Structures are given as C-alpha cells and as structure tokens.
C-alpha cells in the first residue's frame, strides 16, 4: 500500500487531517524529515497561520527544496488551506514573501481584491463550482472531486486567497460576499484546495477517499 506523508512544520493542528486519512484507509504518517518525505509515495501539506511564519518554518526544517523535488518527481501531492497558498510563487501577506513557487501567481487578501464592507476572515461553509465552460472538469481526468456535485458546500477559514497566473489550473471557484476566487487548483500530480475537506462532513471525506484511490492506483490527478 502507498505510504503518505503528512508534512508537519509546526503550523497548526494535524489531528483532523490524520483522522480523515485514517477514514479514507490511507497508510499515513506525520513527519518533518525531508528524507522520510522523499521516500513516500504521496504527501499532504496542511497548515493554518501566517504565510511568512510558514515559509520560515519550512526553511527551518529544510523542507522547501525537498517539497519541490517531491512534486517534480510526479508523485501525488495535496496542499490544504495555507498548504495551497504556499505553493504559489509569492504572497502579499504582511509584506511581500516568496512561496514554494510550484505555481506562478500571488496570494492576496480578500479586501485588496474587492473593497467592500464585509468580514474577513471568511469562516464557514461555501460552495465550490467549476470555472465557466469547464463543467466536465471534475469528471474528465482523475480528479479528487470526481464524486462531488458542483455547488457542494465545503468548510473555509481564510483571509487570503490564491490568484494563479495560469487560469487553466483553476479547478474550483468560490464566491465570498462579492469576490469570486480560485478555491482549488489541479495540475498533473498536484491538487490543492483552500477549503478543509477534513472538516467538511461526509462530502469532504469523499474527496479524501477519491484521493486515496488515486494514490493507491499510483496515478496522477490528470
């Protein structure tokens, strides 16, 4: 069975990610060690907190290059919440910061995308749907969202969101107040989402289950 690394870089509670992996029947373990990571068949980068702290922490554990190497090797890789944002090339959170840089693009605060009188962070449930004209996107390839219906509710907690340069990698969109933004990306072996499937009830667990199928088949997302 494929071995899955949950990357622990001291940014947030991994409990629910572990429980969801367990539920999906994944053979997982938690690690901060780059050698252990590179020896795995798949990896999850979770995380809550601030972008710059997270990059500092990844650097402290010397995990940035190993994560790039892991992704370049073509093994399945998942980023969740802050773990999605870190895959971008830069963030504007409290000043400009460089990310892991798998995807070209920025991480921007809701309020800089559209000024409005609404609360940030977004805390709560919201719908995910495919970009316009891409209705078959979740079903065509080997998407973890294969069994998810467009419009399904997922749980979000965030003040910043990803703005990828390459719109073709956008896998779902979500609208908070009057801002429509990219809530997940998918490209080759990488799937990353702003929402927390592990906190999104039975439908969220279905994403883990589908992802487990992809990993155990040794395949890629698309």
């Amino acid at each position: 069975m494929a071995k899955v690394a949950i990357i622990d870089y001291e940014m947030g509670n991994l409990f629910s990610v572990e429980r969801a992996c367990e539920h999906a029947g994944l053979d997982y373990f938690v690690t901060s060690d780059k050698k252990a990571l590179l020896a795995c068949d798949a990896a999850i980068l979770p995380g809550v907190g601030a972008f710059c702290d997270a990059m500092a922490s990844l650097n402290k554990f010397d995990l940035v290059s190993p994560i790039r190497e892991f992704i370049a090797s073509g093994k399945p890789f998942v980023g969740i919440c802050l773990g999605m944002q870190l895959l971008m090339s830069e963030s504007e959170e409290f000043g400009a910061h460089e990310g892991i840089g798998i995807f070209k693009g920025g991480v921007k605060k809701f309020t800089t995308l559209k000024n409005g009188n609404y609360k940030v962070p977004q805390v709560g449930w919201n719908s995910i749907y495919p970009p316009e004209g891409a209705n078959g996107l979740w079903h065509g390839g080997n998407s973890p969202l294969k069994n998810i219906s467009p419009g399904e509710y997922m749980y979000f907690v965030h003040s910043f969101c990803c703005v990828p340069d390459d719109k073709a990698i956008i896998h779902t969109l979500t609208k908070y107040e009057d801002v429509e933004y990219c809530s997940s990306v998918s490209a080759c072996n990488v799937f990353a989402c702003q929402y927390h499937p592990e906190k999104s009830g039975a439908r969220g667990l279905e994403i883990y289950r589908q992802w487990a199928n992809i990993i155990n088949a040794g395949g890629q997302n698309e």
Partner: protein
Amino acid sequence: MAKNIRIIPRLDIKGPNLVKGIHLEGLRVLGNPEKFARFYYENGADELIYIDVVASLYNRNSLHDIISKAAREIFIPLTVGGGLRTIDDIKEVLRCGADKVSINTAAIKNPGLIKEAALKFGSSTIVVTIEAIKSGDGRYYAYTDNGREHTGVEVLEWAKKAEELGAGEILLTSVDREGTGSGYDIQLVKMVSQAVAIPVIASGGPGKPEDIVDVIKEGRADAVAAASILHYGYVVSDEFSIEKHGEGNLEFIKNRKTFGLIKPSSLGEIKSALTCSSIMCRQCVAAKGGAA
C-alpha cells in the same frame, strides 16, 4: 452577495452528561452528549460547540474523553471551552481533536493569553467567549464563571480589545436570555457585530426559528449558537430514546416537558426558515451514517 450563516448546536457538558440550564444555572440532564452530537452532525449542523459548564468553578473537569471520541467520527469543526486557563490547557484540548478553543475567564484575568494563544495556534483557533449581562444603566458588562462573576469590563470595549489581541471569533452569550426562549438580545449582538471585523456568534435565547432569522437580519450575527431549541427538538423526536443517565436532575428527560416559550425545532426547520427569509446557509441533506 452575502455569506452563508452557520447554525451551531451548543452542547453544555457537566461530567459525562449534556445539560441545559436557564441563565446558565439550574442545570438539567438531557442525556449522552455523543448521541446528540452525532444526531446534529448527520442533520446538517455547521459546527459544534462544547462548553464544560462547571470546569471554571471546580477547576478542570475532563471533557477530553468526550472530545476525543467525537473528533473520530464527526468531521465538522469542533470548538471546546470551559476552564481553559493556560497555553498547555489549550494545547491538550487541541490534541484531543478540538479545532478551536473558547476562552473567557482566563482571558479576562489575563488578556495576554489571547495574544499568546493566537500567535501559537493561529487566530482562527481562538474564540473569545463573552458572557454579557445588561445592567440597570443600560450598559452591557462581561461576566465570568457562567455569568456568576462580575468583572466590571464593558462588553463593547472588551470585544474590540479581544479582536485587537488576535481573537478569531467572538462567541457572544446573553446571560439574561440564555435558556429562556425569549429570543436573542438583538441590541447586544448588533452592537458588537458592527464594531468588530471578526465573526460574531450569537448565543442565548432562541425559542423559535424566527428568533434566529431576527438575530441574523437585525442583529447582523455571522453565526448562531443554539441549545434548548435543538436539544428539546431532538428529545421530543421519534429518534430519541431514554437511557440510563446516572446522577443529576433527570426530571426534564423523564417528563419530556419543555418550557412554554421554547418551540422544539430541528436544524432542517431552522434552515428552512432562514431560506424563506432569503438568508443564505449551507443546505444539507440529512445523511444517515453521515461519516460513512
């Protein structure tokens, strides 16, 4: 555009039991919290809040078993509070599977705890609970220890301070309305919700789904906590069965008698009422064995 409003069942825990009081006093035993939590999870609860209602008074009481168990089968955010005094207390509850913690007494005694906890665990993990009582002069003051201890701190001032220190959300309970079914204190909720940029969870008082609509529309609540209205709704439902509950005041559970003002309701009924009033919320089909 608007956002989806969260409906959050609030589970007050005393020892092994789910309890419910009025004005946070006179606790009656309602049953096994695990059963209630599971029922709510399967029927569309957006999150769950657990409060150990006696922990502040009698020092720490172990909620850990209840949380550990819940976190293994319930995949929505769990907030846990009651008697958390230190960074280590918070760490322990998070390790049991809580996603967020709520702090009140300890935060008022030492506001620096909010900042320290927010830096360590992330703002989104830290919910500051404010137990508000309206005084004779019309001002609202924060209380601790389940509405027993007067602090002299004004609610509005404290809410702004909590936000500034890094709280991710505010759980705002009206002790005056709590358990009465007379509706949320809309004036209180509106005052706080408009003054802070973080989400405010209204708590205390709903007796019918319309009260929830009102606190969202008029009070600008970002989320609502509800207890009696849902607990009684479950107890009077066909799916509820009475078991052995050990010690405590069992009168309610034996008689299944609710208060005149409280109209027992289900999550589905509440969400339908919201939808009818054009309030957005997560629609959820009741899923038997939701986690399966």
